[in-house]
């Protein structure tokens, strides 16, 4: 498992992970009503939370989770390829430089301004992480209710196939192309400005 953590709380990776799994339960189970496993009544953890997942986490000064995304390699079982391949017009994109974004999560414990700041930091951190690691494309399954906001970050998104309705919502598959120009595209939308430019550190746990 790799945790790429950003923000002042980067020394507390255990705490960031624990509060992230708690916030994921609060968001995906309590708020959105997803039918996903809950561990101990507190943590939303599923089969993809294994040693191959990478977490990009924005944490506050005490190490508590503010925003996060789980990245899954597309060279193994992942959500688009395994659960929703029908959302792709062609075969779901896979490869060592294609990584899937899943469980994009903002803590509900904060007000809208803090949540938006944390979201912006997370998006900027995802772009940095991709450039650092040679990731060329982020793929992902998105609820269409969020599509306009995902596009409004300003990065280069492409649809992978026609959206479709499922019990869990109206879903579509997207590819986000990351290039050296991506940080500037995000900055034009106020994302990743110097003030909230995250400091990244990676560690294996």
């Amino acid at each position, binding site marked *: 498992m790799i945790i790429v953590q950003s923000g002042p709380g980067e020394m507390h990776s255990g705490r960031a992970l624990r509060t992230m799994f708690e916030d994921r339960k609060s968001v995906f189970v309590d708020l959105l009503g997803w039918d996903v496993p809950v561990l101990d009544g507190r943590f939303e953890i599923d089969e993809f939370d294994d040693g191959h997942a990478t977490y990009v986490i924005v944490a506050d000064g005490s190490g508590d989770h503010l925003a996060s995304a789980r990245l899954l390699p597309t060279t193994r079982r992942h959500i688009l390829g395994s659960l929703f391949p029908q959302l792709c*017009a062609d075969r779901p994109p896979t490869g060592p430089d294609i990584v899937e974004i899943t469980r994009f999560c903002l803590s509900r414990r904060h*007000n*809208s*301004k803090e*949540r*938006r700041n944390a979201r912006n930091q997370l998006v900027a951190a995802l772009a940095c992480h991709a450039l650092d690691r040679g990731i060329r494309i982020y793929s992902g399954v998105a609820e*269409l*209710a*969020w*599509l*306009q*906001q995902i*596009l*409004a970050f*300003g990065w*280069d*998104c*492409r*649809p992978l*196939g*026609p*959206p*479709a309705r499922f019990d869990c919502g*109206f879903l*579509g598959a997207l590819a986000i192309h990351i290039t050296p120009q991506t940080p500037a595209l995000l900055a*034009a*939308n*106020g994302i990743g400005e110097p003030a909230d430019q995250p400091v990244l550190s990676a560690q294996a746990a």
Partner: protein
Amino acid sequence: MFNRVEVFVRSICRLTNEEQLAEALDSLTAELGLRYFALTHHVDVRRSGDAIRIHNYPAGWAEWFDDQRLGSTDPVHRASNLTSVGFAWSELERMLPLTAEDRRVLDTARREGIGDGFTVPAHVPGEAHGSCSFACAAGEPLREDHLPLLQLAGAFAFEAARRMRRLRLAPPPVMLTDRQRECVIWAARGKSDWEIAQILAISRETVIEHLKQARDRYGVGRRTLLAVHALFDGTIGFLDVLRR
């Protein structure tokens, strides 16, 4: 047909102005068997010079629409503010109560030759609501299997228009200080100056000053409007006001 939408998405990335986008939307619309498109912010376009609006509706329709000041009251626009995924106009009745005036608007549109349609809402926090609609010529059927594609095309087209508008102008965002913002949240929750002073442990005069400066920044004279503007542009959220 997905390939056609994919090509559309790729091509509009490179466009730089609304006329080109209108052309691209016009040909996509025709190829999907529809007649009209309208991509717009839900505001009175004549009074908001920087609002987005491109369309290929019949010539008289846009003028009539503006004369009636329908930008923010049109039933399709109102319904679009209630949802975040696309809807067919045939669902309007189920989405919101239609007034006699609403029915008059819908009848007039039909007389102008605008038939069944599908609207993709476009909500970006901190910006005016908008949408991208597609419609058939009156009497022609709206193809159910094209609706997911229209959803994609509408969302990507709106983002392209947003990018073009940003190139035209970069509006300075209204910024409140944290303290002003807190005062606005409590004012939006119906607290008086004195109550806000007690809650924040500051003097009543300071609260009055914070709220006055916040009103000045938005250029509004009343605290109700201040709260509405701050909610609208995302400076405060509905949950800030409604929680507990």
